[in-house]
């Protein structure tokens, strides 16, 4: 089978998966206990039973879930329309896109740094096995991996704002809102330091541990011995033969993480008042905002599936065995 056929098949399968996820999500939110209208309006307002009925009708909740609500939703999706959020009264696609940018900025930066330093640390720890560097890096990674996000975030927030004068929340300072981000880069950087640092520390441990065990396995292979016998330097062996082979599990890990982290690093967003997708998902769930929930989970499903597809494709380049099959 040619690579094109493989990709096409994967693409079709991915689309099917997305559709199944959509249908399951549609049903899942509707079996949640509670009344969406009540959740949307909250507890502290004077919306009479009559007005609630009027809203219920407007949202289509007065009709049976099957087939009416289901068909209406399918029709909407088919037209490429995700609907209007009940609680925010803005088009779902618009709300999602605006938060997606914020989230990608934070998560992208945090993940790149975590991957870079995690892989580097793991590589050296594996290479220098049983030295004090290895023990130190291992201990640090285990602690970093086990640290609760919220706790680490709050500690860094208190320390960073007290001693370094870093901002306590937000993406840019209030006086810089409304300006394009590239015009306020120093301010943006100051706001990103603490959340990015938190994210980097938390994910670094995971990458380091996997990289370390992976490189240990690779280093015991015969071809490494051969490379050494050919007279290659330590660096050349590690770089050309070790790293590339040891990267395979890391690629899988990165793909999985990137897919799921689009759901937003909800704890980090909450601690640093960073307005991303995670927080939005939470609000949508609390207020039982079906259109927003459906849109959010569609985005999540698509990102996980796309990330996995990318990993698959990357594999065909990294691993000759996959190509041969």
């Amino acid at each position: 089978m040619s690579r094109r056929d493989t990709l096409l098949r994967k693409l079709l399968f991915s689309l099917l998966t997305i559709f199944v996820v959509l249908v399951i999500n549609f049903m899942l939110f509707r079996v949640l206990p509670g009344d969406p209208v009540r959740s949307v309006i909250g507890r502290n307002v004077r919306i009479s039973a009559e007005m609630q009925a009027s809203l219920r009708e407007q949202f289509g909740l007065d009709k049976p879930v099957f087939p009416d609500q289901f068909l209406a939703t399918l029709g909407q999706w088919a037209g490429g329309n995700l609907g209007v959020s009940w609680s925010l009264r803005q088009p779902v696609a618009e709300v999602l896109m605006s938060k997606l940018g914020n989230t990608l900025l934070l998560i992208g930066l945090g993940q790149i740094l975590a991957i870079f330093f995690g892989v580097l640390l793991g590589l050296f720890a594996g290479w220098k096995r049983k030295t004090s560097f290895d023990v130190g890096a291992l201990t640090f990674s285990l602690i970093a991996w086990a640290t609760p996000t919220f706790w680490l975030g709050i500690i860094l927030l208190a320390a960073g704002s007290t001693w370094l004068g870093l901002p306590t929340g937000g993406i840019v300072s209030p006086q810089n809102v409304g300006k394009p981000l590239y015009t306020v880069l120093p301010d943006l950087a100051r706001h990103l330091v603490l959340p990015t640092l938190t994210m980097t520390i938390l994910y670094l441990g995971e990458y380091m541990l996997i990289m370390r065990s992976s490189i240990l396995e690779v280093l015991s292979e015969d071809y490494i011995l051969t490379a050494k016998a050919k007279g290659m330097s330590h660096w050349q062996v590690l770089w050309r033969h070790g790293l590339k082979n040891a990267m395979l599990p890391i690629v899988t890990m990165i793909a999985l993480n990137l897919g799921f982290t689009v759901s937003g690093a909800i704890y980090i967003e909450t601690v640093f008042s960073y307005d991303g997708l995670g927080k939005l998902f939470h609000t949508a769930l609390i207020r039982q905002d079906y259109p927003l929930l459906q849109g959010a989970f569609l985005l999540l499903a698509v990102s996980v599936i796309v990330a996995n597809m990318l990993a698959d494709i990357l594999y065909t380049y990294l691993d000759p065995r996959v190509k041969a099959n």
Partner: protein
Amino acid sequence: MKKIVVFCLLIAALLLAACGGQPAAPQQDSGAALRVGWLGFPDTLNPAYAFLSESYTMFDLVYSTLMTEQLDGSYAGLLAESWSESDDGLVWTFTLRPNIKWHNGESLTAEQVAWNINAFITNSDGWVTNYGYIIGFVEARALDERSLEIELEYPISNMEFRVSFLYIVHPKDFEGFTTPEDLQNFSNFSPIGTGPFKISTLDKDRRVIILDANADYFDGQAKLGQLVYQTFDNSDALIQALKVGDVDFAAEVPTSAFKSVETFEGVTAVALSGRSLSQVILNSAPDGHDPTPNRNPAITDPAVRLAIATAINKKDLVDVVLQGQGLPGVGIVPPTLGGGFWFNSSLTDVSFNLAEASRILEEAGYVLDADGVRAKGGVRLEMRLQFPSDSSNYPRAADMIANWLKEIGIKATPSAVDPDSLVVATNPNADFDMVIWGWGSDPDPDFMLSVMTSEQYVEGGWNDSGYSNPEYDELFAEQQMTIDDTARQKIVWEMQEMLFNDRAYIVLWYDDVLQAYRSDRFTGFIEYPTGIDAFQSLMNVEPVK
């Protein structure tokens, strides 16, 4: 390897640059801009469809109403200069102040105010959040440039309160919508109002709102030049921001942090009596209710209710759960309403006495089993004590109450329940024994009293106890139409007493509003029951000289 070194150096440089940079100076004269940190963001700025309290904070700043509540709980004119009601109470006439200008420079006319009221009446499905305030309104008519009259179906006792919640919007912004849905989908993030501040920047993706003082405000320009609202997602970060001076005002201080905020240098923490209450709801649904109530039958026994009330130490709850920032509760109307006018101060709460509570149960025939739980005729006093899972105060309260009840032979099992499920469990399902929950009251007692009416015990209604008492319902209707305040007060007091004696609610406490501000930078805050950030207070705030 070189690339790695370069990358590391780049990261280090970026970090250093970020840490070293000075905090950017506020845009304008820093003394004139009050930076407010709060824990939310308006859902929309459309008064037809706004549910979050943050939206209403903005409405108060940007819009005006015909009348407004004063510090003592009475009402004064805001847009209205004078007002009168006809002898039969069916027509109210308002005369507007002269020279009121919209933010766009146009003059406000009585015609525009009448357009608002009529839109609320005729398109009530669209203006859902106003509906509760215009029930009984027939029509509004402009009489001339500055005066209008509102015709009513029946005399309305709390008319002044009602119009104090009707924000007058510019018809130009709202008259183009043909369906309720279109009207509600309008976010109105650039509102034109007549209020003391106008929005200059609203960024919903950065969650920052900047308002400038309205120089043409009819009641004089605010002393502040600017208000800057910044959203925080957790209260610890907000308190830290106040401490390091990133914000000048924290709109919400958590109970657990209040004592430490009091010790911050240059910060003043404020606790003021608010309008919220928390209560234990006892399942009071009538036996014939559909669906059949699922509860321990003993919960409807007046002796058991009295015993439970006697076994709850409200003062301890306030001291421990609220860390002293509140008052023990008695009746359903909080003491701040109408400056205390509506609160029945003659009610005396039962005093906490575990021995007495045990005696009451003993006398009513509930006998101690070997396992320490009382029973009567096969009914054991084992009950659920549920509370909404989004509360930080209720778990502690539930544990304390369960411990007291255990001492008198009632086994109460506390459990946190998702608030959505709890809504359905209480109304319409009547599937609970005891639930701890709370309310935020209006300044008028009407809403809190309505919560106990049979009319509200329908799906989507606000009656969560199932209490149903025809005599009470009659009094409720009567107070709504009693225009004389003293006569209405008498009825309102009687209703509170009735509820107190029937114990569908055991009111636990009235909690304080906790806020804090940088007193080294700003002064002039006034304590309103909604907080020191009420718009009348913010009008008076100025930088420390």
